[in-house]
């Protein structure tokens, strides 16, 4: 690791002040320390936000507000989350390991960086890590890479699970920063790479995530399905988050989000529109998959993700519409 200084912020104001002077926030450190060891991240100043007091889960009207420093383990163990937003608990529990979830935080999880191997290897060309150096993944090992939302500059996925559930649940990211507080719908939080893959999300320098807000429970059937190379402790190849309400044998309402398929957690209103008011059937699920994947493009080793996503969607919908 490159040398750095470390401050401990006792509250959000202290964290914001240090971040305003260029310090990088460290929460659980499970992603940042890894990147610092590999010198993919070389901050000169860190500010620990662990003890800023942003670590509680409180009711927010008919919804719930989850502090940015709530650990993934505590969030998935919270009975309100388990009963009313089970999709979120399922997605968190499908990610990482018990040890990592005990340290990983809500804010850090949203900001975790891609797992593209070239991003992690400082000897390789990577526009996300070293702008203008090229993208070694395009013609390289790209089995885990995105098939939606890619650009000439970068084809890396956002790899996490929690954000996929939050996207289907219409969550909002609450921040504080140099320009005051912001409320960023999860759907607008992550950025497709375009011609600037260095920025994974819309956070401005010095901006701190303080919480994530969940709207009122939908009462729908919630399913998180994660397809991966081994049964546990592995990132998704494709994941599907579904929240479906059935009425008289028809799909009355549905929210669907996809992980590790696009460069950002992926949601497509046309897919949901094609399903609503319809009776569930394999043909309908195929039609939905066709809409989802109409612009999908593989890069060789990840071509399989396109049919895999169609099958994962069908399996998830079959389960969620069973009633």
């Amino acid at each position, binding site marked *: 690791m490159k040398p750095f200084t470390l401050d401990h912020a006792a509250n959000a104001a202290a964290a914001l002040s240090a971040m305003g002077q260029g310090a990088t926030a460290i929460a659980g450190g499970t992603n940042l*320390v890894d990147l610092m*060891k590999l010198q993919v991240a070389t901050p000169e100043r860190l500010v620990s936000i*662990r003890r800023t007091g942003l670590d509680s889960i409180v009711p927010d009207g008919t919804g719930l507000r989850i502090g940015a420093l709530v650990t993934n383990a505590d969030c998935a163990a919270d009975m309100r989350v388990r009963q009313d937003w089970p999709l979120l608990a399922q997605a968190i529990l499908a990610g990482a390991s018990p040890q990592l979830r005990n340290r990983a935080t809500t804010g850090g999880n949203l900001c975790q960086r891609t797992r593209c191997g070239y991003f992690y290897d400082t000897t390789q060309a990577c526009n996300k890590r070293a702008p203008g150096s090229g993208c070694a993944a395009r013609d390289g090992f790209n089995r885990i890479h995105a098939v939606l939302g890619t650009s000439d500059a970068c084809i890396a996925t956002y790899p996490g699970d929690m954000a996929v559930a939050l996207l289907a649940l219409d969550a909002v990211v609450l921040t504080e920063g140099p320009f005051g507080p912001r409320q960023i719908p999860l759907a607008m939080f992550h950025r497709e790479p375009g011609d600037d893959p260095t920025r994974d999300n819309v956070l401005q320098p010095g901006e701190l995530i303080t919480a994530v807000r969940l709207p009122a429970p939908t009462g729908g059937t919630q399913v998180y399905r994660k397809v991966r190379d081994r049964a546990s402790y592995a990132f998704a190849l494709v994941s599907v988050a579904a929240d479906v309400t059935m009425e008289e044998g028809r799909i009355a309402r549905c929210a669907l989000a996809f992980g590790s398929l696009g460069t950002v957690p992926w949601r497509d209103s046309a897919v949901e529109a094609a399903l609503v008011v319809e009776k569930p059937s394999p043909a309908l699920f195929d039609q939905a998959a066709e809409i989802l994947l109409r612009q999908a493009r593989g890069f060789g080793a990840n071509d399989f993700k396109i049919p895999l996503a169609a099958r994962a969607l069908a399996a998830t919908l079959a389960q969620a519409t069973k009633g």
Partner: protein
Amino acid sequence: MAPTLPTAHVNGQPQTLPLDPRRTLLDWLRHDLGLTGTKKGCDHGQCGACTVLVDGKRINSCLSLAALHDGDSIETIEGIGTPDALAPLQKAFVSHDGYQCGYCTPGQICSAKALMAELAQGWPSAVSADVAARPIPTAEELRERMSGNLCRCGAYSNIIAALKEVIGAEALA
């Protein structure tokens, strides 16, 4: 009065945290405190060999900066039992051959100890059919809950057997 130095308790003993903020909890325990029971497998959060308990919760010590543990209580394998006084989990690992080379074992045992506390608190897992229900410690649940600890020797089935014995004994007690 001299300012108090950042301190963590390790197996009950107060220890001054390192000055270099780059020191990971793992390297501090092994190199500075000589507690070499905790192992370094991958150094990247991918194997679980470095698992220790912080305030009773299992974490990967390789991905945690030691300087962030001011005031924490850390328990390592050395605190769980000794060769003369093995903890029930350690005894069960011996009697079930829950290891071959033993490299992953300290992490496995720390992890198993925390797993039992998580079960007692009713935490769900990815294989729980209903995340809102109280979990039942089936073999499938135990395997999922131990999945953060890899064993290069593949002693997995014996590790689960050891755990079942200890959890079963607790349930009867």
